[in-house]
């Protein structure tokens, strides 16, 4: 066969056409990469959680791309600091949405941002996840493009109050930060406690950071509840409250919600102050990384980290990182489903695909198959900290609310 310039060109064109025809038609017409954008608190009060989570998220993106991307296309992550100021996050969002290559997914970093961005999303729709578990967001009618990568704070309170009831408690106190994050589930918590026959004997409102815990604990001691639920904190205040209560010889059991359930913080407190957090329990929507290291999702990430960092990788991924990673996994799932259905990858189709997730095996993130209800995943489990082996261990089954 004679091989001339014309034959080579024809052959190349045929191969290119065949490769392209292998993809669904609508994807061929769209961008060659998926742009994900987001902002997180790399400075400010939650910088420790924000910087750690960002590093892991960048690794998650790299791993995803190494494994062929999403529906055959690589992911590009554009990221900015918000300082945990909602208006800064909104400015970051506007910048991302005015870029030549608009993101198909945006990850926000606070309840405040998720509320501020809601009117913007009606004009420039984009699939929008984030770190917030705010109860208001689990409402497709008012927040059609936003979702929560886990249960709402109200659902977390439901799980904790059930735990209180199951463990013989009759009185409970709520201690929460003076933020929208802290106050979110309180009203619901009062009603849920009453429905379970539990008495809320005291409520204490503190600063989100740098609170004068002695006076708060003195009030708690007078109320002397069986259980105390701490909510609205990330790295600080909650350990100091428990430590002070133990110093006051209080027998009360302490419970927490997702952002107050990090092993690294508990280990740090134990190293400095002894086993004061022993028995502290709380609700977590995800499995701890050590608990499910052999699961499909975690094992892949473990192998990637080991290969990239060698012995520098301690073998543990913090819960602050699992949350955004799972949020991105949900977005990934929605993109794959949309592409598979040969639909245009836009906000409306993505949120529809996400809302349709039913009995999905998350590969280890969650203990029960994932079903999205009202743009949230209402399941969780109660874990308790063991100061001796420095692990949070499960003390309940997975609870779907």
């Amino acid at each position, binding site marked *: 066969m004679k091989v001339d310039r014309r034959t080579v060109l024809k052959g190349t064109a045929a191969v290119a056409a065949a490769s392209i025809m292998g993809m669904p038609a609508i994807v061929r017409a769209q961008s060659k990469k998926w742009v994900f954008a987001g902002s997180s608190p*790399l400075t400010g009060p939650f910088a420790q959680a924000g910087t750690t989570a960002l590093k892991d998220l960048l690794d998650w993106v790299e791993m995803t791309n190494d494994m062929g991307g999403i529906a055959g296309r690589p992911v590009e*992550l554009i990221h900015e600091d918000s300082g945990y100021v*909602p208006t800064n996050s909104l400015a970051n969002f506007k910048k991302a949405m005015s870029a030549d290559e608009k993101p198909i997914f945006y990850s926000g970093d606070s309840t405040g941002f998720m509320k*501020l961005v809601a009117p913007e999303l009606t004009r420039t729709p984009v699939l929008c996840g984030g770190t917030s578990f705010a109860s*208001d967001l689990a409402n497709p009618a008012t927040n059609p493009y936003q979702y929560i990568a886990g249960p709402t704070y109200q659902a977390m309170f439901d799980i904790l109050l059930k735990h209180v009831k199951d463990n013989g408690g009759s009185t409970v106190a709520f201690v929460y930060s003076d933020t*929208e994050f802290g106050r979110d589930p309180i009203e619901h918590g009062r009603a849920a406690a009453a429905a379970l026959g539990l008495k809320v004997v005291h409520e204490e409102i503190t600063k989100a950071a740098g609170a004068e815990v002695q006076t708060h604990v003195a009030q708690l001691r007078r109320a002397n509840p069986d259980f105390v639920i701490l909510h609205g904190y990330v790295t600080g205040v909650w350990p100091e409250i428990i430590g002070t209560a133990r110093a006051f010889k209080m027998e009360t059991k302490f419970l927490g919600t997702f952002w107050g359930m990090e092993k690294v913080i508990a280990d740090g407190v134990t190293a400095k102050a002894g086993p004061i957090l022993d028995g502290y329990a709380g609700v977590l929507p995800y499995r701890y990384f050590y608990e499910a290291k052999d699961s499909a999702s975690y094992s892949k990430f473990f192998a990637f980290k080991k290969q990239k960092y060698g012995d520098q990788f301690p073998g543990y991924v913090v819960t602050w990182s699992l949350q955004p990673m799972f949020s991105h996994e949900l977005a990934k799932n929605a993109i794959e489903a949309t592409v598979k259905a040969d639909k245009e990858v836009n906000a409306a189709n993505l949120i529809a695909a996400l809302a349709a997730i039913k009995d999905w095996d998350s590969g280890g993130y969650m203990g029960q198959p994932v079903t999205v209800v009202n743009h949230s995943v209402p399941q969780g489990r109660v874990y308790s900290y063991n100061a001796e082996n420095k692990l949070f261990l499960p003390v309940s089954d997975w609870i779907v609310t």
Partner: protein
Amino acid sequence: MLIGNYKASYAADESIFGSWPMRYGFAAMVVVLAVLPFAANSFIVFLAVQVAIYTVAITGLNILTGYTGLISLGHGALVGVGAYATAIFGNWLGVPFWVVIPMAVVTTAVIGLGFGLPSLRIRGLYLTIATLAASFIIIFVIEHWKSVTNGDSGITLAPASVFGIDLVSDAQKYALIVPIAVLAVLFAQNLFRTRVGRAFIAIRDSDYSAEIIGVGLTRYKLLAFALGSAYAGLAGSLWAYNFLALLPTQFELQLSIVFLAALVVGGSARTLGPVFGAIFVILIPEFLKWVFGFLTPFSPTIVEYTAPANTIAYGLLIIVFMIFEPMGLAAIWTRFWRYLNLWPFSP
């Protein structure tokens, strides 16, 4: 050829744009502002709108602090009052924005007047602390008066509408907000050519002396609070129509401190000070992000270091300006135009 700043008539002395560079400079600025929404992308327009809103708010603070000498740490909360008043009146009454905005301005002025009452008995640091308390009280009320403000969940409002067109895009909001901001700045400039404005300045320089020459301290101090708060209310109203969603946390103490810092950096007791201050606090962080963004290709995780470096650089810039130009950016601007006006005989 001009060789000095001579004023040959009272009209020249009172003129807002007294020299040709100022006249042409203002005309050029109007042209740039008119062209901007057509030439820039929506993010730049969004930033311009924010600069306009901050300019209005800081101009109010300038009236109170810069010209009258009454330092306020409650100004951010008063912007919140204006914003919430806009959302509440708009949602309750369903009236158009041009009715809602004056209502919000008057409401904020009245509330600001109330918080200005301590200024009749105390001044200096004590008054600052009193205004700080006002900030906490306002935010507390917004957070806990849930039946009206919707508490922590925040409140949303319908966009401003002109001839049935909802102003929802950044360019549309720009068309509403920026002209109002320009008029607000011009009004402030004129204010200090009147008896009222000069009374404010007299009180700032020495309230005892002002009283001796016939300036009623009660009247003018309260008027300064009312006017400063009215500007805060206007800024809040524009803020509400810009964001269309409000949260109490947006108006906490940090916002008041940002306004105060912007006024100092921009130039206190100068009409253009708030404009420069607003540009500084809105655009410099974005500029620094852009500068540090060039490092990202070298390492994706470098943002972990560049984000705090950005904050440190921003803080250092404020310190540098305070050391080398304590009169603020507006003073540099004034010197520049004066130099240009007298060239080639500039000193």
